[in-house]
Structure formats: structure tokens, C-alpha cells
């Protein structure tokens, strides 16, 4: 039972353009969401998070949007840079705290 889903395994974007990574969830008890970036053979590094009481959170080039009614969130990277090329995971936390539930990841490739 995949409670957090990233339906696009890969995404290719031109440098300077916008990258949009999508994530859907099924459990209405999730109320905190995070995005992580991961390089091969390394641990994930935290990018940005959003609480369910908000619909947008911005940090520099990264913006996360949350649509609770659709149980959908997205990560926007503007402008995209070649160094952004990595696998991006969205994750969710139950409202009682505890473990992160991850999506399958989306591999972003930003081409010069």
C-alpha cells in the first residue's frame, strides 16, 4: 500500500527553466510534508517542508505547494541548475509524529 506516490520516475529540464516535481498521498492523517534530494550512495538531504496548515512555502529557488483537497504537493525549482540533477523524494509524516513515509522518487536531470 503506497501511501505516498511520485508517478514520474524521471524528469528532464533545460538549465534556467522551471522544474516541477509532483507527489500524491492517500492518507488524510498526514499533516507535514518534506522534500529531500539524494545523490547515489549518499543519504538524503533536506530541502524544504510544509505544514498542512499552509498551502505554500518558499526558500530561495525552491517552492513547495500543497493542495490538501487533492492530496497533492509539488516542488518547483526556479531557475533549474545542472547541480540540481539528483533524485528527489517527497515524504509525509502522520499527525501523531514519527516515521517519514517516502515516495518512490523522481530523478531530475537538468541539462546545460
Amino acid at each position, binding site marked *: 500500500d503506497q501511501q505516498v506516490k511520485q508517478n514520474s520516475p524521471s524528469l528532464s529540464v533545460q538549465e534556467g527553466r522551471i522544474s516541477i516535481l509532483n507527489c500524491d498521498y492517500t492518507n488524510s492523517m498526514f499533516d*507535514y510534508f*518534506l522534500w*529531500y534530494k539524494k545523490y547515489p*550512495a*549518499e*543519504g*538524503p*538531504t*533536506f530541502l524544504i*517542508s510544509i505544514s498542512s496548515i499552509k498551502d505554500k512555502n518558499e526558500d530561495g529557488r525552491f517552492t513547495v505547494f500543497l493542495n490538501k483537497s487533492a492530496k497533492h504537493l509539488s516542488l518547483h525549482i526556479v531557475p533549474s541548475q545542472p547541480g540540481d540533477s539528483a533524485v528527489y*523524494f517527497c515524504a509525509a*509524516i502522520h499527525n*501523531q*509524529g*514519527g*516515521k*517519514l*513515509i*517516502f*515516495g*518512490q*522518487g523522481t530523478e531530475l536531470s537538468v541539462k546545460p
Partner: protein
Amino acid sequence: EAGVTQSPTHLIKTRGQQATLRCSPISGHTSVYWYQQALGLGLQFLLWYDEGEERNRGNFPPRFSGRQFPNYSSELNVNALELEDSALYLCASSFGTDRNYGYTFGSGTRLTVV
């Protein structure tokens, strides 16, 4: 401040053997989480320890076990290794169960079963 440290970095074992992986959380963090990332797959939740107690367990067989020590460091033990246990094992730590403090991951242990 030191991050989450995992040891060893790489581990090669023979099928049927036991593997022990170690994790030291960030100072002050009391919760430790273990995840498995098999090749081409996402991060699958294994175990969660908080204040020395096992709080939750993922959908893995009992041969995956662990513990948390009084200094909050943790061990993951995998008994009767199978080829499909080959994966990157990641440890994360957080301050208790308050997600607002964030979760920090280590660099992982690459386990290869031959």
C-alpha cells in the same frame, strides 16, 4: 556539530551470515530511524527507536532487528542474509517525535550479500 554517522561504509557478507550496522545520531537527538533503499527502489521504512524503545516497525521479516543504546546510538542486525538484502541502509535521527525539528540522514551503509 557532527551529523549522523553510520558504520561501516561498505559491508560484504555471504548469504546466510549476519550483518550488524551502526548509527550514531546527532547529539541531542533521541529518535533513530532505519530505512532500506534497494537498487532502483525508494526508501522503505524498517525500524524506529525512541528513548531506547522500538516504536514502530516496517513490513520486514523478523530477521531484521535492532536496538537503541542509552546514548541513543543504534544497531541494525540482519540475520540469515539473503541476496535481496543487498541495499543501501540509511539511518536518520530526530529530536524525539517532534517533526518540526527535522530528520537528518547519515550517508548510509552499502551492504552487499554474495
